[in-house]
């Protein structure tokens, strides 16, 4: 079951904040976040395991609400380099060991 990401696209000015959401209809074991720039391979950002943890990576952090089967990615004080498409990938409880990716959120940061 593909996770649902929102919004589909975000346009920011440098220094602004953004939140990207990822939700699933199935119980999740973990949520993975990746960023892909145009013409490049996806790059790993972070993994959140069940337990409601929150992680950070530079000015990018994420939370995982296991009960709501949701994860959110927070980008604070955005930089031009943050532009790209962000994908969440989910592993479901009791499922096989394969990531199912959402449709992606295209983030554009303008000067």
């Amino acid at each position, binding site marked *: 079951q*593909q996770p649902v990401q929102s919004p589909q696209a975000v346009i920011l000015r440098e220094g602004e904040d953004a939140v990207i959401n990822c939700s699933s209809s199935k119980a999740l074991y*973990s949520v993975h976040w990746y960023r892909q720039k145009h013409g490049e391979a*996806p790059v790993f950002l972070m993994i959140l395991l069940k337990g409601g943890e929150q992680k950070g990576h530079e000015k990018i952090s994420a939370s995982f609400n296991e009960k709501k089967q949701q994860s959110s990615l927070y980008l604070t004080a955005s930089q031009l380099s943050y532009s790209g498409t962000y994908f969440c990938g989910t592993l479901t409880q009791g499922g096989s*060991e*394969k990531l199912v990716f959402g449709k992606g959120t295209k983030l554009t940061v303008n000067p």
Partner: protein
Amino acid sequence: SAVISQKPSRDICQRGTSLTIQCQVDSQVTMMFWYRQQPGQSLTLIATANQGSEATYESGFVIDKFPISRPNLTFSTLTVSNMSPEDSSIYLCSVVRGNANTEAFFGQGTRLTVV
């Protein structure tokens, strides 16, 4: 980290022909995956290729169309057979070193155009 060499990076092929994509990893990995990504779209898993066992295909993908080999822990190939324009896409291999809850690394992708 893992360094993945994926070849070819791009190709233009005639319909009805086949293309084999190679994925070489700089170290042994347990799990390898093949994805398809239409331009501007998400990554769709084609199959999981674990060494020593048959590849496991996702719904909508069959072995006759996308045969996969995994002869050892550092190498895999995906063949796109009897191609049609609908097969035009980016194909990516991905590897995971540990279990599924560890970082996945992606090859640079193969941009395939079928004419």
